[in-house]
């Protein structure tokens, strides 16, 4: 974490000779560049620099020596750089925490392999991994559906889903062409082409009641664009109608949870927030407002407030009957 930009090249320079040492037959330059995550141009610059380095004396027999054969490079003299530098605390934390997280997602990777990798990595990390790890990731594990969805993806086959849609409070059945699994903010999603809706959809795995892999191959239409996750999982269409809410203090979390615009602090209610949400799904907005139990007032559209209130009056009537009023 400390100064990654400065250290990045040094880490690479100290790793390149050991990398080539571990591959005595030589490596294509393009492959090495990919492994180090840099353009081939940069890798050549790094190799040129290393060629100038070596043991004190710095004569022909002291300098690191590399052999280029066609597009391959191999090392012929290491100047004593045969192993990479130990893992830093941050690197050990990144590895150990990520592997522990995979252990919580049993459908996603072979658990025994993850456990063995964790043990080996911890041993190699040594003291860097011994202390209480200062980071933990906790994810929502849906073992069974995750394993089935993964199989569908690996085998390139269509899936049949029983899926719960909360905004309409209904169970649906549909056949989808799976495209990828997403683990976003601790939840697992399947991104797939839905044949029923004829569109790209995200399915939250904790809402999948049942899933099976079909015999037929997955056939999403060509040219489907996967969504860009940089703006989060909720991506309202910019042109969608505006719902304006006034959130009381206890409902301020809505502004942290959903993408909102025009956020303003207001005094009525005290400590409140005025926000605008964009959604084409009024049924969703109705459920949201109702579930806030009065802690969110609707400024716009008026019919939303009316619908929520009418539902509530009908419900109160039922309680009244039962209370014998």
């Amino acid at each position, binding site marked *: *974490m400390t100064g*990654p930009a400065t250290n*990045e090249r*040094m*880490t*690479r320079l100290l*790793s*390149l000779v050991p*990398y080539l040492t571990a591959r005595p037959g030589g490596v294509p330059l393009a492959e090495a560049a990919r492994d180090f995550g840099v353009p081939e141009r940069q890798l050549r610059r790094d190799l040129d620099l290393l060629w*100038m*380095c070596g*043991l004190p004396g710095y004569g022909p027999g002291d300098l690191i020596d590399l052999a280029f054969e066609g597009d391959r490079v191999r090392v012929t003299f290491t100047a004593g750089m045969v*192993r*990479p*530098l*130990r893992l830093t*605390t*941050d690197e050990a*934390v*990144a*590895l150990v*925490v*990520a*592997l522990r997280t*995979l252990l919580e997602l049993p459908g996603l*990777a072979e658990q025994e*392999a993850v456990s063995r*990798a964790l043990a*080996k990595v911890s041993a*190699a990390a040594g003291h860097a991994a011994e202390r*209480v*790890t200062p*980071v*933990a*990731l*906790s994810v929502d594990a849906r073992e069974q559906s995750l394993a089935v969805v*993964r199989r569908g993806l690996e085998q390139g086959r269509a899936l049949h889903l029983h899926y*719960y849609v909360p905004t309409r409070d*209904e169970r649906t059945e549909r056949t989808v062409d799976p495209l*990828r*699994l*997403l*683990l*976003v903010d*601790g939840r697992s999603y399947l991104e797939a082409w839905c044949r029923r809706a004829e569109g790209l959809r995200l399915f939250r795995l904790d809402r999948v009641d049942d899933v099976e892999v079909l015999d037929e191959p997955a056939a999403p239409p060509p040219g489907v664009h996967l969504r860009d*996750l940089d703006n989060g999982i909720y991506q309202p269409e910019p042109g969608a109608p505006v719902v304006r809410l006034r959130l009381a203090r206890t409902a301020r979390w809505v502004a942290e949870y959903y993408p909102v615009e025009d956020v303003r602090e207001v005094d009525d209610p005290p*400590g409140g927030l005025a926000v605008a949400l964009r959604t084409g799904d009024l049924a969703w907005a109705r459920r949201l407002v*109702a*579930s806030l*139990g*009065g802690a969110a*007032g*609707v400024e716009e559209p008026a019919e939303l*407030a*009316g619908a929520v*209130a009418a539902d*509530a009056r009908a*419900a109160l009537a*039922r*309680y009244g009957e039962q209370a014998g009023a």
Partner: protein
Amino acid sequence: MSAKRAERLVNLVIALLGTRQYVTAARIRATVPGYEPDDGTARADEAFKRMFERDKAELREMGVPLETGRTSVFDTEDGYRIARADYELPEITLTGEEAAAVGLALRLWESAQLAGAAQSALVKLRAAGVDVDPARALPVQPRLDSDEPAFEPCYTAARDRRVLTFDYRRPDEDAPARRRVQPWGVVAWHGRWYLVGLDLDRQAPRVFRLSRVVGTPRAGGPEGAFEPPADVDLSALVARQAGGEEHLVVVRARPGTAVGLRRWATPLGAGPDGDDRLQLRTTEPWRLADQLAAYGPDVVVESPQAVRAAVVERLTRLAAMGEQA
């Protein structure tokens, strides 16, 4: 970093790795290329000293175990060396499956806080001869919330065991309050980041949501100022705060409605009015009351009385909303 400096640092590492003797700064200046030569002037001495201090700091920051000491009692000043056993990453051999698990695990950090550390860990493992292919066939896109400015200072303070001071604003309070904490770690739980630590003013463990931290947390005092409890489970502490005592709630739902509740309810058979009786277990009765109110007239709470009253209270507020609009 300039190519000249990178070259000098690589040569310095090679020279100090290649000796068992401690090498004095003067000797390093005379042998390793790129240092200000000794021309007898104080200006040149000063320039060398500055350069060498910067280089030592850079190497130590990268985790290079630079030792200082004297080889014999006749030496008049300290020298430097790098013990190979402390420098080198120990042997690590991973099977194809284990390496795939590591590759998949590290993708968790792809867009998140430890992305740089994950990338350099990957580079070192590859340099150790492990073939890690993160782009393996399975299309999985993990993503953590990367937009959390408080993460870095909190993580760094927890890693270095330094006391952290920050302003924290709970959503139900108007003004942020100053907190002093021994940070034990940072936890991603259900998609949100939390800081867990000992609140020094309350002398009790506390959980803080990072998005509610106002401004930049400041670390103070020495490193290693405390030690978290050895058996601390950070995720469990966060989960416990979110969880609580379990309550049993019985509701009546009109046939065919409340599909979402039925997904996790225990059916108790039909009630006298033909409604389905459902039993629900929850650790968060007030959140459940929010959900139940959102079902409107389809769901009526039978027991306990407290939850029933809570739902009626919510419905009363919602019903009043229509009158204002």
